[in-house]
């Protein structure tokens, strides 16, 4: 399966060089325990791959089994609207036990809290989260976390070694290798 909606630097949350040769996309849910386990794995992969990798996170909340996941995703977007997406993203995964109160986490981020709360209460970012979800479904995401490497679904396990070797095995890296 391929990524149905290509990575768009104007829309997506991207960590790493925006035009890096390698792209790792994760569809995740803030209340999913496996996604929380994947958080340090992705960090380690980023350290390993350095400037050759950009990481993209998209929302895939399964709200009927994870009652806080949608609100957490909207909170991440609300912090993102103030340029703090990756900070709250990390906090949500590191403090999954506090998902019931995203504002408590956000209060540590030096945000315009009035704006943050207002956007949460008016569900300003609900449509954006939904867009991510539907793009995931159209790309064959069937559970979380789901990874795509340079636009192609990664179906194997997602430990650091497997992800790194999958990234290094892409044709894009083979091409780079000549210049390394």
């Amino acid at each position, binding site marked *: 399966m391929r990524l149905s909606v290509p990575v768009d630097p104007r829309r997506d949350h991207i960590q790493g060089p925006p035009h890096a040769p390698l792209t790792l996309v994760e569809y995740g849910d803030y209340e999913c325990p496996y996604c929380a386990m994947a958080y340090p794995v992705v960090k380690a992969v980023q350290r390993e791959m350095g400037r050759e990798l950009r990481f993209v996170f998209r929302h895939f909340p399964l709200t009927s089994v994870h009652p806080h996941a949608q609100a957490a995703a909207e909170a991440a977007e609300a912090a993102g609207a103030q340029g703090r997406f990756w900070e709250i993203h990390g906090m949500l995964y590191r403090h999954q036990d506090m998902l019931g109160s995203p504002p408590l986490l956000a209060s540590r981020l030096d945000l315009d809290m009035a704006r943050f709360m207002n956007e949460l209460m008016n569900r300003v970012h609900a449509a954006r989260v939904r867009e991510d979800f539907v793009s995931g479904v*159209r790309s*064959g995401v*069937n559970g979380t976390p789901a990874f795509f490497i340079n636009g192609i679904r990664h179906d194997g396990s997602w430990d650091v070694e497997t992800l790194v070797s999958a990234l290094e095995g892409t044709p894009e890296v083979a091409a780079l290798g000549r210049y390394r």
Partner: protein
Amino acid sequence: MKAQSMQSVLQAGRPAPDFSLNSTPDQRVALSDFLGQPVVLFFYPADWSPVCGDQVVLYNELMPVFKGHNATLLGASVDGPWCHLAFSKDRKLVYPLLSDFEPKGEVARAYGVYRQGEGISERALFVIDTEGIVRWSYVSPIGVNPGADGILSALEAMTHQETFR
């Protein structure tokens, strides 16, 4: 395995066999109730198994998209109605799960997706049009959640054809 290959999955273009199954201990649902609107019918092996969990929950999230196509979603397995009731409550499902329970697997057999040796159905998807004709079918490897992309593509193709009819 031999029994598997003997049976063939109902293909696109064939009429979808009608059925009437319990959706709760005291209610029944018939396929013919939905003539005039598209139906997404999926068979899955069993309530509570982890892959089914993801699959039924994923489809729950997609109800607004299915409704956008005016489509009804029906799940079916060989589990009894009380089991379905508990499973459905646990996963907060907003669509019916049908019990293909007695005679066991009769409907799955009619659709060519019964696994004889194991006594369960395949993990299979059918998209049925407004006139009760199968327009798309798919059998997933039993341990793999097939997601919903194929269903959505089939519904979109149907909606498109209706528009230009």
